[in-house]
């Protein structure tokens, strides 16, 4: 077996694993029925699914003699930005009460998202000015 053949098989395997995890992420997104649990699905797609697809791309690029390290950068940017968007969606869920009310923190008064009493009452009363 030449190196070329091995690289082709490796690319195929990485693609399969990657798309498998992406499918699981999509199934999770469709299956779960509450916004907070649903949030868990995309974090999976963002890490291993995309990671494997990028690894496949890298293997293929190096095998065809045109090596590229851009994928590492995509990976790094994803890893830095994914938690931030997940955090924002979680905050929106907490703020609009579309999930269970979280327990109060053990050391401080309240969670920072909930620390806006006036705004919360406005939302509850449906009065928006």
């Amino acid at each position, binding site marked *: 077996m030449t190196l070329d053949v091995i690289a082709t098989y490796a690319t195929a395997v990485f693609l399969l694993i990657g798309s498998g*995890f992406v499918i*699981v*992420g999509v*199934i*999770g997104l469709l*299956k*779960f*029925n*509450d916004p*907070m*649990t649903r*949030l*868990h*699905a995309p*974090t*999976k797609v963002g*890490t*291993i699914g995309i990671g494997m697809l990028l690894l496949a791309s890298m293997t293929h690029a190096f095998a065809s003699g045109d090596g*590229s*390290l*851009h994928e*590492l*950068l995509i990976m790094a940017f994803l*890893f*830095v930005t*994914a*938690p931030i968007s*997940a*955090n924002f969606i*979680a*905050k929106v*869920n*907490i703020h609009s009460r579309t999930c*269970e009310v*979280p*327990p*109060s*923190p*053990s*050391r*401080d*008064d*309240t*969670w*920072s*998202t909930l*620390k806006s009493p006036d705004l919360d009452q406005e939302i509850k009363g449906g009065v928006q000015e």
Partner: protein
Amino acid sequence: MARAFRWLLPHPLLTLLLTLVWTLLQNEVSAGMVVFGLILGIIIPWGTSIWWPDTPKGFRPGKMISYSIIVLWDIIVANVQVAWIVLTVPNSRLKPAWIVVPLDLRKPEAITVLAGTITLTPGTVSADLSDEGHSLLVHVLHTDDPDAVRDEIKVRYERRLKEIFS
């Protein structure tokens, strides 16, 4: 001399990182591009230093590398576990839970890295910080024992981060 150095390079690690990212973006290592990256790496931290005046002190890059390897391994293991949960556990038997993690970390950078790690590890999402920054709110997808998850976060990640950002 030290003051001039601090004025020119307010964030030496950021300078290195920017140079590296620029070189990676070019996709080839040539002297000209590395020098240009270095120029960007000096100008950008210098120009933006008014917005983040404090240089993080006591950061240990060596331990950060071993921490990254542990986190990458955990991401792979937890991904398989969570994929299994998604495919096999029906919604009615799913036990999501909120956990409150009391924080020993005080530095904003360290808390950011911890929250990011928790979100990247499948099965847990960090949702909020308490108003004074002493606890972290984490949502778990499926667990029988929320306290065990909390202890694992504290022992596995927070203890190591405390060493990195000491």
